[in-house]
């Protein structure tokens, strides 16, 4: 009995820029998937959320911005990867920082991928398609028309 086929996937997005939240949501909607997007706009609340021990409803994927107020994305990543259960969740860095040090640090803390935020909606759609197809098993997305 395979339950994953009809499973509704859940993506946790940590992003404080409402424009980027809008663009990611828009891209996911355009891809016609029934993915649930949970948004946190700061590091503290997402760490609290993932720390809840009896949380059986963990996300299937985490999208993490680096440049966040107070606790930055790299610190969140480090915390997540130090926690046995949640460390298994694929965590993808989605940032506008092209600093080599940020990229090196992300992979050091076991990020699954490092994406530079695209410059247009086509780029957002292609990126989300790649992420969903590669990290959320069994989700097929029709070829994008450009």
């Amino acid at each position: 009995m395979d339950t994953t086929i009809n499973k509704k996937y859940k993506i946790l997005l940590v992003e404080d820029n409402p424009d980027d939240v809008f663009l990611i949501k828009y891209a996911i909607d355009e891809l016609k998937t029934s993915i649930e997007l949970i948004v946190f706009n700061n590091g503290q609340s997402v760490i609290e959320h993932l720390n809840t021990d009896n949380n059986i409803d963990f996300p299937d994927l985490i999208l993490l911005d680096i440049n966040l107020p107070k606790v930055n994305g790299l610190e969140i990543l480090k915390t997540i990867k130090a926690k046995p259960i949640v460390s298994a969740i694929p965590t993808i860095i989605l940032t506008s920082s092209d600093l080599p040090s940020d990229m090196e640090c992300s992979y050091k803390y076991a990020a699954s991928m490092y994406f530079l935020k695209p410059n247009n909606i086509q780029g957002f759609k292609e990126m989300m398609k790649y992420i969903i197809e590669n990290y959320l098993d069994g989700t097929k997305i029709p070829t994008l028309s450009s």
Partner: protein
Amino acid sequence: MIRSIIHHDEQRLEGTFKRLKAIEDISYLCSSLFTTDLPTVANKVLKPFCELTDADYGLVFLVKDPDDQLYAEAVYGLPDEYIELRNTKEILTLNSRNVQDNWPSIRAMLKKQIIIIKDMDQMNMSFSKFFKDLIKPNKITSVAAVPIVIKDKSVGVITKYYIESHIFDEEEISFMRTTANIITSTIERNQLLEITKKSERELTQANEILKHVNQELDAFVYIASHDLREPLRTIESFASILQDQLKSSLSVTQNDCLERIVNATQRMRKLITDLTNLSRASQDTKENEVVDLNILLTEVQFELTAFIQKKKAEIIISDDLPKVVGNKEKITSVFKNLIANGIKFNKSMTPQVKISIHYDPTIASDKVCLSIEDNGIGIEKEYFKKIFGLFQRLHSQEEYEGTGAGLAIVKKILEKYGCAIWMESKINKGSKFFFTLVKEK
């Protein structure tokens, strides 16, 4: 008779030897003294000066600012209390009238000459009571006073006293003059040294500040460019949504407007990226490494493949290129910029870019000079320097697109390695860029 002549000569020789020894001692002392403090120097010199010329007593007086008073600074053969007595009993200046035993000293300073007195008894002058008390039961017969002159101003005097009558021959006078000269040149040398050290310190400090400000500026440019790119990305993204959603219903003009917004944001992003690259050009990201230019150029050509093919260009590497030291990415950026410029600003059927070693005897031995020559449109002489300025463009966007930051970045990278770039060019014939790189040791 003969014996007495021989004896006399022996004595003279011994005197000469002693004085030579004294000069040697004094100059040795002074050569290792790195102070401009005259008291220190005078104190050191007094003893060998008196001892090796058989003087019984010696005194150093120094002029002290601000009121030009004379103070006893050091004594030889006299108890130290003389200094205190001399300095407290009465104020002594160069114009003092009642100078008694100090008359030769003051005279020497005023005249800036050595003063010699063979026989005090004939001079009708007396000594102060405390001086007489100190040397009892002796009395002074001969005196020599040697002024210390610095920058043509008497700043002190060394005076020596003899109980017995003393003959000051030419040689001894010359010895005294030499001693004074050694003191003077020691002080003057050390003053120069201090000035040099001070300017060196100031220069180092100024350099540090400059370095710090530059780093801050680069950091600022980096942060600013990052923050500037963010809203730009948003504008372009949302414009692209509008284009996406409205593509079938937009009029030609409306579509053109959106197109222009997107183009402008893209151009601005390019500008900001160049600004970031410029700020990174002088930053140390990685350790220097040995870079084989032959390999590096193969890679640069590979990276430019599409552009080379599109313009049907030819890259000619005419020499076996050397190995250089530096950051590989940055050196790549230098070649890439210059080669791409040679192809870009070129209207020939076959744009050619030739890379060779430039042999020039005026180039420093630790550097190698390379040239990149094209058969392009060339540059007027008045722009030879200007084109290395930031965002300096010689053509309109329609003619040749670009931000005009390329050569500024190239120049900044090269300058970071202490290297230079210059050029020569003829309109419609082509340009030749010369630049140096650090040779592998």
